[in-house]
């Protein structure tokens, strides 16, 4: 297949994937899978009136959604979906994932601050604490995968999993990356910044119309992107018998995304002090141990 056709199919699949994630999110909230639901709420958000709160910070109010969506689209460009099909094969691909995710936090902070409301404010600080905390294990665990592949190219990382997938090679790393991915996308067990029950929507409490739509869409793409990252780094990317590469990638991504939302549905929200305590006291040391363990296994 010509690279163009390949690329076109992948982008179609990606957009479809985002819609599937939207349906999954609605399932985790309401318990029943209704396919037209997300589309309808998409119109509703479009039809809504734009509301600006009092004394909002004009600069941040406008830039935050665009920064949020832009950063996530950047992350997609470096993820390899198939053997040859990656938009930008960045020399420091692994590091770039985390570099982009930090700006998810910055945009949440911006929107939390710009809206000039206490709920959004508290949501913003929670997002800051949570995303700083959980991007530390992500960086360390990424170095472990880079160590195995001896290169930062994501394509090399996938190639290095030819013999044994990273999920079996470094299970501790996989578990940490999985939990951190949940925390970075603030999905239900970690949805402190946008807590429905406590902060009535937290950081997004005050957004309406197109801005809210951008954030909603951005978060769905973020969930899909991180699922693809989990697949690429730990579940052997496009490797699989019979089917072409990118079909495997999307299949595994679908499984990972469903597990994200399943955890969210059946667990209560984590407490703020536990959130930070588990990360700083157990997450980061475990990540360091993981690097140590992978080093030893490599040298054996």
């Amino acid at each position, binding site marked *: 297949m010509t690279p163009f056709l390949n690329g076109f199919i992948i982008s179609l699949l990606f957009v479809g994937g985002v819609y599937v994630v939207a349906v999954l999110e609605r399932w985790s909230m309401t318990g029943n899978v209704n396919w037209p639901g997300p589309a309808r709420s998409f119109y509703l958000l479009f039809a809504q009136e734009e509301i600006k709160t009092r004394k909002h910070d004009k600069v941040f109010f406008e830039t935050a959604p665009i920064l949020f969506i832009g950063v996530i689209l950047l992350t997609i460009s470096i993820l390899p979906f198939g053997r040859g099909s990656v938009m930008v094969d960045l*020399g420091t691909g692994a590091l770039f994932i985390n*570099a982009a995710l*930090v700006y998810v936090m910055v945009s949440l902070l911006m929107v939390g601050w710009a809206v000039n409301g206490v709920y959004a404010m508290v949501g913003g600080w929670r997002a800051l604490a949570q995303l*700083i905390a959980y991007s530390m294990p992500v960086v360390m665990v990424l170095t472990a995968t880079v160590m195995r592949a001896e*290169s*930062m190219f994501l394509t090399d990382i996938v190639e290095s999993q030819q013999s044994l997938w990273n999920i079996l090679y470094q299970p501790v790393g996989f578990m940490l990356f999985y939990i951190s991915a949940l925390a970075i996308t603030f999905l239900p067990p970690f949805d402190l910044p946008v807590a429905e029950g406590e902060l009535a929507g937290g950081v997004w409490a005050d957004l309406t119309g197109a801005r809210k739509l951008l954030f909603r869409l951005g978060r769905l793409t973020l969930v899909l992107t991180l699922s693809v990252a989990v697949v690429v780094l730990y579940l052997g990317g496009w490797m699989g018998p019979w089917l072409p590469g990118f079909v495997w990638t999307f299949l595994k991504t679908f499984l990972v995304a469903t597990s994200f939302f399943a955890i969210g549905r059946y667990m209560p929200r984590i407490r703020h002090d536990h959130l930070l305590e588990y990360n700083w006291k157990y997450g980061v040391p475990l990540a360091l141990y993981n690097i140590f363990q992978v080093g030893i296994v490599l040298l054996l």
Partner: protein
Amino acid sequence: MISIQLILLIIFGLVAIWFGWRVFMTSSMVRSALSLLGSMVAIGALFLVMEAEFLGVLQIMMMGTEMSIMAVFMMMYMMDPGGLGNMDMSHQKNLSIAAGVAVTVLITGAVLFADWGTIVTQVPSPHEQNRLLGMEILKRSMMIFETAGVTILTGMIASIAVALSIKSSREK
């Protein structure tokens, strides 16, 4: 001759300077913290333009976290973080302007009149750079990196010791 690299360099340089200038011009403190973040990202982009890819990505990543924390501290310790009262928070203005301008002129003078020798056009590929940088760190300047690590440790312990209110914990 005008190469793309020069154009990009100038663009990102101007962006960095404009954000840097706004840091001290805005009355809203959080906006100044995040415009410092903007200038740091522009500096990261400068690194990327100059093909130091690892450093560029690292700079962009690190500065994101650091400047957000700075924004938190700005809010805690500034009198009016929202900048709605537009107070003027500076003093001895003209002295500092004079110092800034003098230093800039001095450096540009040195830059223009120094003889830099031949400019190298070829640079190893990013992959190669990472490997060489790794080798460099683990071979020749292992010592420097160790001390950097230890200084970070002492810095952490020192800042915690300073920040905690030991006195009040004894009272309770």
